[in-house]
Protein backbone atom coordinates (compact mmCIF):
# COMPACT_ATOMS: atom_id res chain seq x y z
CA UNK A 1 0.00 0.00 0.00
CA UNK A 2 3.00 2.30 0.47
CA UNK A 3 3.28 2.58 -3.30
CA UNK A 4 -0.14 4.24 -3.44
CA UNK A 5 -0.65 7.99 -3.29
CA UNK A 6 -3.40 9.72 -1.31
CA UNK A 7 -5.95 9.66 -4.15
CA UNK A 8 -5.36 5.98 -4.79
CA UNK A 9 -5.64 5.21 -1.08
CA UNK A 10 -8.98 7.04 -0.98
CA UNK A 11 -10.23 5.00 -3.93
CA UNK A 12 -9.12 1.80 -2.18
CA UNK A 13 -11.14 2.76 0.87
CA UNK A 14 -14.21 3.50 -1.25
CA UNK A 15 -14.22 0.28 -3.22
CA UNK A 16 -12.79 -2.29 -0.85
CA UNK A 17 -12.92 -0.72 2.62
CA UNK A 18 -9.17 -1.11 2.60
CA UNK A 19 -7.25 1.07 5.01
CA UNK A 20 -4.20 -1.11 4.96
CA UNK A 21 -2.87 -4.21 3.29
CA UNK A 22 -5.67 -6.78 3.46
CA UNK A 23 -5.30 -10.12 5.15
CA UNK A 24 -5.01 -13.20 3.04
CA UNK A 25 -4.39 -13.23 -0.68
CA UNK A 26 -4.48 -10.02 -2.65
CA UNK A 27 -3.45 -8.30 -5.83
CA UNK A 28 -3.55 -4.53 -5.83
CA UNK A 29 -3.53 -2.83 -9.19
CA UNK A 30 -2.99 0.90 -9.73
CA UNK A 31 -2.78 2.71 -13.08
CA UNK A 32 -2.33 -0.50 -15.01
CA UNK A 33 0.37 -2.05 -12.84
CA UNK A 34 0.40 -4.49 -10.00
CA UNK A 35 1.54 -2.66 -6.87
CA UNK A 36 1.26 -5.45 -4.37
CA UNK A 37 0.52 -9.15 -4.27
CA UNK A 38 0.27 -11.82 -1.65
CA UNK A 39 -0.50 -15.46 -2.01
CA UNK A 40 -1.26 -18.03 0.65
CA UNK A 41 -0.76 -21.77 0.93
CA UNK A 42 -4.25 -22.28 -0.50
CA UNK A 43 -4.63 -19.35 -2.87
CA UNK A 44 -2.25 -18.65 -5.70
CA UNK A 45 -2.24 -15.62 -7.99
CA UNK A 46 -0.45 -15.89 -11.31
CA UNK A 47 -0.08 -13.17 -13.95
CA UNK A 48 -1.39 -14.05 -17.37
CA UNK A 49 1.16 -14.01 -20.14
CA UNK A 50 -1.04 -13.57 -23.22
CA UNK A 51 -3.28 -10.75 -21.99
CA UNK A 52 -3.37 -8.36 -19.06
CA UNK A 53 -4.79 -9.97 -15.96
CA UNK A 54 -4.36 -12.71 -13.41
CA UNK A 55 -5.41 -16.27 -12.66
CA UNK A 56 -6.53 -16.86 -9.10
CA UNK A 57 -6.35 -20.50 -8.11
CA UNK A 58 -8.05 -21.61 -4.94
CA UNK A 59 -7.31 -25.15 -3.76
CA UNK A 60 -9.98 -27.65 -2.77
CA UNK A 61 -11.27 -27.35 0.82
CA UNK A 62 -10.07 -23.76 1.29
CA UNK A 63 -12.34 -22.23 3.91
CA UNK A 64 -12.55 -18.87 5.67
CA UNK A 65 -10.05 -17.24 3.36
CA UNK A 66 -10.34 -14.12 1.27
CA UNK A 67 -8.95 -12.65 -1.92
CA UNK A 68 -8.87 -8.91 -2.57
CA UNK A 69 -8.21 -7.69 -6.10
CA UNK A 70 -9.09 -3.99 -6.17
CA UNK A 71 -8.12 -1.76 -9.08
CA UNK A 72 -7.62 1.99 -8.98
CA UNK A 73 -7.04 4.44 -11.81
CA UNK A 74 -5.94 7.97 -11.06
CA UNK A 75 -4.23 8.85 -14.33
CA UNK A 76 -6.43 10.60 -16.88
CA UNK A 77 -6.69 8.94 -20.28
CA UNK A 78 -5.80 5.43 -19.16
CA UNK A 79 -7.75 2.66 -20.89
CA UNK A 80 -7.35 -0.97 -20.04
CA UNK A 81 -9.04 -4.32 -20.36
CA UNK A 82 -8.12 -6.85 -17.70
CA UNK A 83 -8.96 -10.54 -17.63
CA UNK A 84 -9.14 -12.18 -14.22
CA UNK A 85 -10.03 -15.84 -13.91
CA UNK A 86 -10.96 -17.42 -10.62
CA UNK A 87 -10.63 -21.16 -10.30
CA UNK A 88 -12.31 -22.17 -7.07
CA UNK A 89 -11.79 -25.81 -6.06
CA UNK A 90 -14.31 -28.10 -4.39
CA UNK A 91 -15.75 -27.63 -0.89
CA UNK A 92 -14.37 -24.12 -0.50
CA UNK A 93 -15.87 -21.20 1.41
CA UNK A 94 -14.22 -17.95 0.36
CA UNK A 95 -14.75 -14.22 0.10
CA UNK A 96 -13.64 -12.42 -3.04
CA UNK A 97 -13.54 -8.63 -3.04
CA UNK A 98 -13.04 -6.87 -6.34
CA UNK A 99 -13.97 -3.43 -7.51
CA UNK A 100 -12.64 -0.47 -9.36
CA UNK A 101 -12.24 3.16 -8.46
CA UNK A 102 -11.43 5.83 -11.02
CA UNK A 103 -10.36 9.36 -10.20
CA UNK A 104 -10.22 11.47 -13.32
CA UNK A 105 -9.25 15.10 -12.98
CA UNK A 106 -8.06 15.40 -16.56
CA UNK A 107 -9.64 15.96 -19.94
CA UNK A 108 -9.27 12.48 -21.37
CA UNK A 109 -11.55 9.56 -20.69
CA UNK A 110 -10.41 6.87 -18.26
CA UNK A 111 -11.70 3.38 -18.79
CA UNK A 112 -11.37 0.05 -17.03
CA UNK A 113 -13.04 -3.00 -18.45
CA UNK A 114 -12.67 -5.92 -16.09
CA UNK A 115 -13.61 -9.36 -17.33
CA UNK A 116 -14.02 -11.73 -14.42
CA UNK A 117 -14.66 -15.42 -14.88
CA UNK A 118 -15.49 -17.70 -12.01
CA UNK A 119 -15.23 -21.47 -12.20
CA UNK A 120 -16.72 -22.67 -8.95
CA UNK A 121 -16.14 -26.27 -7.95
CA UNK A 122 -18.61 -28.69 -6.41
CA UNK A 123 -20.18 -27.70 -3.09
CA UNK A 124 -18.15 -24.53 -2.82
CA UNK A 125 -19.46 -21.29 -1.48
CA UNK A 126 -18.27 -17.96 -2.82
CA UNK A 127 -19.22 -14.51 -1.67
CA UNK A 128 -18.23 -11.93 -4.24
CA UNK A 129 -18.30 -8.20 -3.53
CA UNK A 130 -17.73 -5.73 -6.34
CA UNK A 131 -17.89 -2.00 -5.84
CA UNK A 132 -17.42 0.61 -8.50
CA UNK A 133 -16.75 4.23 -7.77
CA UNK A 134 -15.70 7.34 -9.63
CA UNK A 135 -14.48 10.76 -8.55
CA UNK A 136 -12.59 13.77 -9.88
CA UNK A 137 -13.82 16.95 -11.50
CA UNK A 138 -12.12 16.75 -14.89
CA UNK A 139 -14.02 16.74 -18.20
CA UNK A 140 -12.73 13.27 -19.01
CA UNK A 141 -15.29 10.53 -18.53
CA UNK A 142 -14.97 7.66 -16.07
CA UNK A 143 -16.00 4.51 -17.84
CA UNK A 144 -16.37 0.99 -16.45
CA UNK A 145 -17.63 -1.97 -18.45
CA UNK A 146 -17.39 -5.00 -16.21
CA UNK A 147 -18.14 -8.46 -17.50
CA UNK A 148 -18.77 -11.19 -14.95
CA UNK A 149 -19.14 -14.81 -15.93
CA UNK A 150 -19.88 -17.46 -13.35
CA UNK A 151 -19.98 -21.20 -13.87
CA UNK A 152 -21.36 -22.97 -10.84
CA UNK A 153 -20.79 -26.69 -10.47
CA UNK A 154 -23.06 -29.07 -8.60
CA UNK A 155 -24.11 -27.94 -5.13
CA UNK A 156 -22.15 -24.70 -5.24
CA UNK A 157 -23.40 -21.29 -4.13
CA UNK A 158 -22.41 -17.82 -5.19
CA UNK A 159 -23.56 -14.61 -3.61
CA UNK A 160 -22.80 -11.48 -5.59
CA UNK A 161 -23.02 -8.02 -4.17
CA UNK A 162 -22.62 -5.49 -6.97
CA UNK A 163 -22.56 -1.85 -6.00
CA UNK A 164 -22.15 1.28 -8.08
CA UNK A 165 -23.33 4.33 -6.24
CA UNK A 166 -21.33 7.26 -7.40
CA UNK A 167 -19.29 8.92 -10.06
CA UNK A 168 -19.19 6.45 -12.95
CA UNK A 169 -20.16 8.26 -16.16
CA UNK A 170 -20.79 5.34 -18.39
CA UNK A 171 -21.14 1.69 -17.59
CA UNK A 172 -22.26 -1.45 -19.27
CA UNK A 173 -22.34 -4.28 -16.80
CA UNK A 174 -22.82 -7.74 -18.15
CA UNK A 175 -23.27 -10.72 -15.90
CA UNK A 176 -23.68 -14.21 -17.25
CA UNK A 177 -24.14 -17.28 -15.07
CA UNK A 178 -24.67 -20.95 -15.72
CA UNK A 179 -25.78 -23.22 -12.91
CA UNK A 180 -25.47 -26.99 -12.61
CA UNK A 181 -27.40 -29.36 -10.34
CA UNK A 182 -28.46 -27.84 -6.99
CA UNK A 183 -26.32 -24.76 -7.55
CA UNK A 184 -27.56 -21.47 -6.20
CA UNK A 185 -26.95 -17.88 -7.25
CA UNK A 186 -27.94 -14.83 -5.25
CA UNK A 187 -27.38 -11.37 -6.71
CA UNK A 188 -27.92 -8.09 -4.94
CA UNK A 189 -27.22 -5.16 -7.20
CA UNK A 190 -27.39 -1.54 -6.10
CA UNK A 191 -27.02 1.16 -8.66
CA UNK A 192 -27.31 4.92 -8.55
CA UNK A 193 -26.77 7.24 -11.49
CA UNK A 194 -26.72 11.01 -11.53
CA UNK A 195 -25.74 13.89 -13.84
CA UNK A 196 -25.86 12.69 -17.43
CA UNK A 197 -24.65 9.18 -16.59
CA UNK A 198 -25.62 6.19 -18.57
CA UNK A 199 -25.76 2.72 -17.03
CA UNK A 200 -26.76 -0.59 -18.51
CA UNK A 201 -26.97 -3.69 -16.42
CA UNK A 202 -27.54 -6.96 -18.15
CA UNK A 203 -27.99 -10.33 -16.49
CA UNK A 204 -28.40 -13.64 -18.19
CA UNK A 205 -28.71 -16.53 -15.79
CA UNK A 206 -29.18 -20.05 -17.08
CA UNK A 207 -30.53 -22.64 -14.67
CA UNK A 208 -29.26 -25.61 -16.60
CA UNK A 209 -29.90 -28.53 -14.27
CA UNK A 210 -32.39 -29.78 -11.71
CA UNK A 211 -32.44 -28.16 -8.30
CA UNK A 212 -30.66 -25.02 -9.41
CA UNK A 213 -31.98 -21.66 -8.28
CA UNK A 214 -31.32 -17.97 -8.77
CA UNK A 215 -32.49 -14.85 -7.00
CA UNK A 216 -31.44 -11.69 -8.81
CA UNK A 217 -32.50 -8.43 -7.20
CA UNK A 218 -31.55 -5.02 -8.52
CA UNK A 219 -32.35 -1.82 -6.70
CA UNK A 220 -31.55 1.38 -8.48
CA UNK A 221 -31.98 5.14 -8.32
CA UNK A 222 -31.77 7.35 -11.42
CA UNK A 223 -31.36 11.05 -10.64
CA UNK A 224 -30.80 14.25 -12.64
CA UNK A 225 -30.65 13.47 -16.38
CA UNK A 226 -29.25 9.97 -16.08
CA UNK A 227 -30.41 6.86 -17.90
CA UNK A 228 -30.50 3.23 -16.83
CA UNK A 229 -31.33 0.09 -18.65
CA UNK A 230 -31.90 -2.97 -16.52
CA UNK A 231 -32.14 -6.18 -18.44
CA UNK A 232 -32.59 -9.18 -16.19
CA UNK A 233 -33.13 -12.52 -17.84
CA UNK A 234 -33.45 -15.93 -16.25
CA UNK A 235 -33.59 -19.07 -18.32
CA UNK A 236 -34.91 -22.29 -16.83
CA UNK A 237 -33.84 -25.45 -18.64
CA UNK A 238 -34.72 -27.95 -15.90
CA UNK A 239 -36.58 -28.36 -12.64
CA UNK A 240 -35.40 -25.11 -11.13
CA UNK A 241 -36.57 -21.91 -9.53
CA UNK A 242 -35.68 -18.39 -10.55
CA UNK A 243 -36.69 -14.95 -9.32
CA UNK A 244 -35.68 -11.57 -10.67
CA UNK A 245 -36.68 -8.22 -9.33
CA UNK A 246 -35.86 -4.70 -10.46
CA UNK A 247 -37.05 -2.03 -8.12
CA UNK A 248 -36.22 1.52 -9.10
CA UNK A 249 -36.66 5.04 -7.86
CA UNK A 250 -36.76 7.68 -10.55
CA UNK A 251 -36.04 11.33 -9.80
CA UNK A 252 -35.66 14.67 -11.59
CA UNK A 253 -35.37 13.95 -15.33
CA UNK A 254 -33.99 10.45 -14.91
CA UNK A 255 -35.06 7.68 -17.25
CA UNK A 256 -35.21 3.96 -16.61
CA UNK A 257 -35.89 1.10 -18.94
CA UNK A 258 -36.53 -2.16 -17.12
CA UNK A 259 -36.63 -5.29 -19.25
CA UNK A 260 -37.13 -8.30 -17.03
CA UNK A 261 -37.48 -11.51 -18.95
CA UNK A 262 -38.01 -15.18 -18.29
CA UNK A 263 -37.46 -18.14 -20.53
CA UNK A 264 -38.76 -21.54 -19.47
CA UNK A 265 -37.56 -24.51 -21.48
CA UNK A 266 -38.80 -27.11 -19.04
CA UNK A 267 -42.26 -27.73 -17.69
CA UNK A 268 -40.73 -27.94 -14.20
CA UNK A 269 -39.09 -24.53 -14.32
CA UNK A 270 -40.63 -22.06 -11.87
CA UNK A 271 -39.73 -18.52 -12.78
CA UNK A 272 -40.97 -15.22 -11.41
CA UNK A 273 -40.10 -11.66 -12.25
CA UNK A 274 -41.08 -8.40 -10.64
CA UNK A 275 -40.35 -4.87 -11.79
CA UNK A 276 -41.37 -1.54 -10.36
CA UNK A 277 -40.36 2.00 -11.17
CA UNK A 278 -41.65 5.04 -9.34
CA UNK A 279 -40.70 8.29 -7.74
CA UNK A 280 -40.28 8.65 -3.98
CA UNK A 281 -43.78 8.59 -2.52
CA UNK A 282 -44.88 12.01 -1.30
CA UNK A 283 -46.15 10.47 1.92
CA UNK A 284 -42.69 9.06 2.67
CA UNK A 285 -41.20 12.54 2.41
CA UNK A 286 -44.00 14.02 4.53
CA UNK A 287 -43.60 11.35 7.20
CA UNK A 288 -39.89 12.07 7.61
CA UNK A 289 -40.53 15.83 7.51
CA UNK A 290 -42.96 15.44 10.42
CA UNK A 291 -40.00 13.93 12.29
CA UNK A 292 -38.09 17.18 11.74
CA UNK A 293 -36.08 16.36 8.61
CA UNK A 294 -35.94 18.83 5.75
CA UNK A 295 -37.26 17.65 2.40
CA UNK A 296 -33.70 17.16 1.15
CA UNK A 297 -32.65 15.22 4.25
CA UNK A 298 -35.76 13.08 3.96
CA UNK A 299 -34.94 12.30 0.33
CA UNK A 300 -31.38 11.30 1.24
CA UNK A 301 -32.58 9.01 4.04
CA UNK A 302 -35.09 7.31 1.78
CA UNK A 303 -32.48 6.70 -0.93
CA UNK A 304 -29.85 5.57 1.57
CA UNK A 305 -32.28 3.08 3.02
CA UNK A 306 -33.38 1.87 -0.38
CA UNK A 307 -29.82 1.26 -1.53
CA UNK A 308 -28.58 -0.12 1.76
Amino acid at each position, binding site marked *: MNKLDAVQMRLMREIADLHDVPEGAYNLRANGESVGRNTTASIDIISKTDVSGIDIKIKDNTVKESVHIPVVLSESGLKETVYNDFYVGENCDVLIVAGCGIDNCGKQDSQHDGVHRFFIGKNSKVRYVEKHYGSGDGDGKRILNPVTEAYLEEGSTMEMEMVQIKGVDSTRRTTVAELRKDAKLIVRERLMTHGVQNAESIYKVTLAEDGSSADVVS*RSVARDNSFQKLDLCVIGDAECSGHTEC*DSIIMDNGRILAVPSLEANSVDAQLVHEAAIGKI*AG*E*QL*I*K*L*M*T*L*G*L*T*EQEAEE*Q*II*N*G*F*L*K
Partner: protein
Amino acid sequence: MLELKNVSFGAESDGKHKEIIDGVDLSIPDNRFIVITGPNGGGKSTLAKLIAGIENPTEGRIIFDGEDITEKSITERAKMGIGFAFQQPVRFKGITVLDLLRMAEGRNLSVSEACSYLSEVGLCAKDYIGREVNSSLSGGELKRIEIATILARNVKLALFDEPEAGIDLWSFKNLIRIFEKMRNSDSARTVIVISHQERILSIADEIIVLADGKLVKRGTKDEILPEIIGSGYAMSVCPRMEGGDANE
Protein backbone atom coordinates in the same frame (compact mmCIF):
# COMPACT_ATOMS: atom_id res chain seq x y z
CA MET B 1 -50.97 26.28 23.82
CA LEU B 2 -52.45 25.82 20.37
CA GLU B 3 -54.84 28.33 18.86
CA LEU B 4 -56.73 28.20 15.61
CA LYS B 5 -58.22 31.52 14.56
CA ASN B 6 -60.98 31.39 11.99
CA VAL B 7 -59.22 28.61 10.08
CA SER B 8 -60.74 27.52 6.78
CA PHE B 9 -59.59 25.07 4.15
CA GLY B 10 -61.33 24.71 0.82
CA ALA B 11 -60.82 22.34 -2.07
CA GLU B 12 -62.27 21.80 -5.51
CA SER B 13 -64.29 18.65 -5.88
CA ASP B 14 -66.22 17.73 -9.05
CA GLY B 15 -65.84 21.31 -10.23
CA LYS B 16 -67.43 22.65 -7.05
CA HIS B 17 -65.69 24.50 -4.26
CA LYS B 18 -66.14 22.86 -0.88
CA GLU B 19 -65.12 24.19 2.51
CA ILE B 20 -63.66 21.17 4.26
CA ILE B 21 -62.77 23.25 7.29
CA ASP B 22 -65.04 26.23 7.73
CA GLY B 23 -64.01 29.03 10.06
CA VAL B 24 -62.82 26.96 13.01
CA ASP B 25 -61.84 28.80 16.19
CA LEU B 26 -60.17 26.61 18.74
CA SER B 27 -57.88 27.07 21.68
CA ILE B 28 -56.20 24.11 23.39
CA PRO B 29 -54.15 24.67 26.54
CA ASP B 30 -51.09 22.58 27.43
CA ASN B 31 -51.21 19.18 29.07
CA ARG B 32 -54.61 18.15 27.74
CA PHE B 33 -55.87 14.95 26.24
CA ILE B 34 -58.34 15.93 23.53
CA VAL B 35 -60.32 13.61 21.29
CA ILE B 36 -61.86 14.95 18.10
CA THR B 37 -64.77 12.98 16.72
CA GLY B 38 -67.57 13.53 14.24
CA PRO B 39 -68.94 12.05 11.03
CA ASN B 40 -66.71 10.78 8.26
CA GLY B 41 -65.87 13.56 5.85
CA GLY B 42 -66.45 16.12 8.61
CA GLY B 43 -62.91 17.47 8.30
CA LYS B 44 -61.17 15.80 11.26
CA SER B 45 -58.11 14.52 9.42
CA THR B 46 -57.80 17.77 7.50
CA LEU B 47 -57.79 19.72 10.74
CA ALA B 48 -54.92 17.60 12.08
CA LYS B 49 -53.02 18.02 8.81
CA LEU B 50 -53.48 21.79 8.96
CA ILE B 51 -51.98 21.82 12.46
CA ALA B 52 -48.99 19.71 11.35
CA GLY B 53 -48.46 21.80 8.20
CA ILE B 54 -49.24 18.98 5.77
CA GLU B 55 -52.05 21.16 4.41
CA ASN B 56 -52.15 24.94 4.44
CA PRO B 57 -55.30 26.86 5.37
CA THR B 58 -56.98 29.02 2.77
CA GLU B 59 -57.89 31.44 5.54
CA GLY B 60 -57.13 32.02 9.19
CA ARG B 61 -54.09 31.75 11.47
CA ILE B 62 -52.60 28.97 13.53
CA ILE B 63 -50.69 29.99 16.67
CA PHE B 64 -48.50 27.57 18.61
CA ASP B 65 -46.90 28.60 21.91
CA GLY B 66 -47.55 32.23 21.04
CA GLU B 67 -45.92 32.03 17.62
CA ASP B 68 -47.82 32.31 14.34
CA ILE B 69 -46.95 29.06 12.51
CA THR B 70 -49.40 29.45 9.61
CA GLU B 71 -46.62 29.98 7.07
CA LYS B 72 -44.19 27.51 8.63
CA SER B 73 -43.23 24.27 6.88
CA ILE B 74 -43.87 20.75 8.17
CA THR B 75 -40.19 20.51 9.17
CA GLU B 76 -40.24 23.81 11.08
CA ARG B 77 -43.37 22.81 12.95
CA ALA B 78 -41.87 19.41 13.75
CA LYS B 79 -38.80 21.13 15.14
CA MET B 80 -41.05 23.31 17.31
CA GLY B 81 -42.45 20.14 18.90
CA ILE B 82 -45.46 19.09 16.85
CA GLY B 83 -45.73 15.37 16.13
CA PHE B 84 -48.12 13.65 13.75
CA ALA B 85 -49.02 9.97 13.62
CA PHE B 86 -50.49 8.95 10.29
CA GLN B 87 -53.74 7.08 9.91
CA GLN B 88 -51.99 4.83 7.41
CA PRO B 89 -48.37 4.59 8.55
CA VAL B 90 -45.93 4.94 5.71
CA ARG B 91 -43.74 2.01 4.68
CA PHE B 92 -40.10 2.35 3.66
CA LYS B 93 -37.90 -0.15 1.88
CA GLY B 94 -34.56 -0.55 3.60
CA ILE B 95 -35.24 1.81 6.52
CA THR B 96 -35.22 -0.13 9.78
CA VAL B 97 -37.24 0.52 12.92
CA LEU B 98 -34.01 1.68 14.59
CA ASP B 99 -33.27 4.08 11.70
CA LEU B 100 -36.73 5.56 11.99
CA LEU B 101 -36.52 5.98 15.76
CA ARG B 102 -33.12 7.62 15.36
CA MET B 103 -34.52 10.05 12.81
CA ALA B 104 -37.42 10.77 15.13
CA GLU B 105 -35.21 11.34 18.13
CA GLY B 106 -32.86 13.51 16.09
CA ARG B 107 -29.63 12.07 17.43
CA ASN B 108 -27.76 8.80 17.49
CA LEU B 109 -30.11 7.05 19.84
CA SER B 110 -28.56 4.00 21.51
CA VAL B 111 -30.09 0.61 20.86
CA SER B 112 -31.19 0.28 24.49
CA GLU B 113 -32.92 3.68 24.39
CA ALA B 114 -34.67 2.71 21.17
CA CYS B 115 -35.73 -0.54 22.79
CA SER B 116 -37.36 1.32 25.66
CA TYR B 117 -39.63 3.18 23.22
CA LEU B 118 -40.59 -0.10 21.55
CA SER B 119 -41.33 -1.71 24.91
CA GLU B 120 -43.62 1.20 25.71
CA VAL B 121 -45.76 0.37 22.71
CA GLY B 122 -45.76 -3.32 23.56
CA LEU B 123 -43.30 -4.57 20.97
CA CYS B 124 -40.49 -6.91 21.90
CA ALA B 125 -37.57 -4.72 20.99
CA LYS B 126 -35.12 -7.41 19.96
CA ASP B 127 -37.56 -8.78 17.41
CA TYR B 128 -38.25 -5.41 15.85
CA ILE B 129 -35.26 -3.12 16.15
CA GLY B 130 -33.57 -4.42 13.00
CA ARG B 131 -36.74 -5.01 10.99
CA GLU B 132 -37.37 -2.93 7.91
CA VAL B 133 -40.41 -0.68 8.08
CA ASN B 134 -41.83 -2.37 5.01
CA SER B 135 -44.78 -4.49 4.03
CA SER B 136 -43.54 -7.43 6.11
CA LEU B 137 -45.00 -5.64 9.15
CA SER B 138 -48.69 -5.91 9.95
CA GLY B 139 -50.98 -2.89 10.26
CA GLY B 140 -50.96 -3.13 14.04
CA GLU B 141 -47.17 -3.41 14.23
CA LEU B 142 -46.75 -0.40 11.96
CA LYS B 143 -49.22 1.57 14.03
CA ARG B 144 -47.31 0.87 17.21
CA ILE B 145 -43.99 1.75 15.58
CA GLU B 146 -45.63 4.97 14.40
CA ILE B 147 -46.57 5.76 17.99
CA ALA B 148 -43.05 4.87 19.17
CA THR B 149 -41.67 7.52 16.80
CA ILE B 150 -43.91 10.09 18.49
CA LEU B 151 -42.73 8.94 21.94
CA ALA B 152 -39.09 9.13 20.80
CA ARG B 153 -39.61 12.71 19.68
CA ASN B 154 -40.82 13.88 23.07
CA VAL B 155 -43.13 16.39 21.38
CA LYS B 156 -45.14 19.17 23.00
CA LEU B 157 -48.16 18.44 20.83
CA ALA B 158 -48.90 14.94 19.55
CA LEU B 159 -51.54 14.46 16.85
CA PHE B 160 -52.94 10.97 16.20
CA ASP B 161 -55.13 10.47 13.16
CA GLU B 162 -57.48 7.53 13.80
CA PRO B 163 -54.90 5.39 15.59
CA GLU B 164 -57.38 2.51 15.84
CA ALA B 165 -57.95 2.27 12.08
CA GLY B 166 -56.85 -0.99 10.53
CA ILE B 167 -55.61 -2.76 13.64
CA ASP B 168 -56.67 -5.94 15.32
CA LEU B 169 -58.32 -6.05 18.70
CA TRP B 170 -55.23 -7.19 20.55
CA SER B 171 -53.35 -4.22 19.19
CA PHE B 172 -56.31 -2.00 20.02
CA LYS B 173 -56.21 -3.00 23.68
CA ASN B 174 -52.52 -2.19 23.74
CA LEU B 175 -53.22 1.11 22.07
CA ILE B 176 -55.68 2.08 24.78
CA ARG B 177 -53.05 1.28 27.39
CA ILE B 178 -50.51 3.47 25.61
CA PHE B 179 -52.96 6.37 25.46
CA GLU B 180 -53.92 5.92 29.09
CA LYS B 181 -50.25 6.08 29.98
CA MET B 182 -49.80 9.22 27.91
CA ARG B 183 -52.90 10.71 29.47
CA ASN B 184 -51.59 10.08 32.99
CA SER B 185 -47.99 11.10 32.39
CA ASP B 186 -46.61 14.20 34.11
CA SER B 187 -45.30 15.77 30.92
CA ALA B 188 -46.82 19.00 29.65
CA ARG B 189 -47.54 17.24 26.36
CA THR B 190 -50.90 17.87 24.76
CA VAL B 191 -52.37 14.95 22.89
CA ILE B 192 -54.99 15.34 20.18
CA VAL B 193 -56.50 12.08 18.97
CA ILE B 194 -58.93 11.76 16.11
CA SER B 195 -61.12 8.80 16.88
CA HIS B 196 -64.60 7.36 16.89
CA GLN B 197 -63.77 4.81 19.54
CA GLU B 198 -65.70 5.06 22.77
CA ARG B 199 -62.76 3.62 24.69
CA ILE B 200 -60.53 6.44 23.50
CA LEU B 201 -63.26 9.07 23.94
CA SER B 202 -63.77 7.89 27.50
CA ILE B 203 -60.23 8.84 28.54
CA ALA B 204 -60.43 12.34 27.06
CA ASP B 205 -60.20 15.49 29.13
CA GLU B 206 -62.26 17.13 26.45
CA ILE B 207 -64.17 15.99 23.40
CA ILE B 208 -64.59 18.09 20.28
CA VAL B 209 -67.21 17.21 17.66
CA LEU B 210 -66.48 18.37 14.15
CA ALA B 211 -69.11 18.12 11.41
CA ASP B 212 -69.23 19.72 7.96
CA GLY B 213 -65.94 21.44 8.74
CA LYS B 214 -67.42 23.23 11.73
CA LEU B 215 -66.85 22.84 15.43
CA VAL B 216 -70.31 21.81 16.63
CA LYS B 217 -69.68 20.70 20.21
CA ARG B 218 -66.94 20.92 22.76
CA GLY B 219 -66.89 19.94 26.37
CA THR B 220 -65.71 17.46 28.97
CA LYS B 221 -66.30 13.78 28.28
CA ASP B 222 -69.06 13.78 30.91
CA GLU B 223 -70.86 16.51 28.99
CA ILE B 224 -70.35 15.23 25.49
CA LEU B 225 -70.07 11.46 25.68
CA PRO B 226 -73.67 10.75 26.81
CA GLU B 227 -74.98 12.84 23.90
CA ILE B 228 -73.02 11.04 21.23
CA ILE B 229 -72.83 7.52 22.58
CA GLY B 230 -74.25 4.95 20.21
CA SER B 231 -74.02 7.40 17.32
CA GLY B 232 -71.45 6.94 14.60
CA TYR B 233 -69.20 9.35 16.48
CA ALA B 234 -68.71 7.09 19.48
CA MET B 235 -68.56 3.45 18.58
CA SER B 236 -67.84 0.65 20.95
CA VAL B 237 -65.66 -2.27 20.02
CA CYS B 238 -67.63 -5.33 18.95
CA PRO B 239 -68.42 -7.20 22.21
CA ARG B 240 -67.75 -10.54 20.59
CA MET B 241 -64.30 -9.41 19.57
CA GLU B 242 -63.75 -8.25 23.13
CA GLY B 243 -63.94 -11.88 24.19
CA GLY B 244 -67.70 -12.05 24.77
CA ASP B 245 -67.68 -9.52 27.57
CA ALA B 246 -70.01 -6.80 26.42
CA ASN B 247 -69.46 -4.79 29.55
CA GLU B 248 -65.76 -4.45 29.12
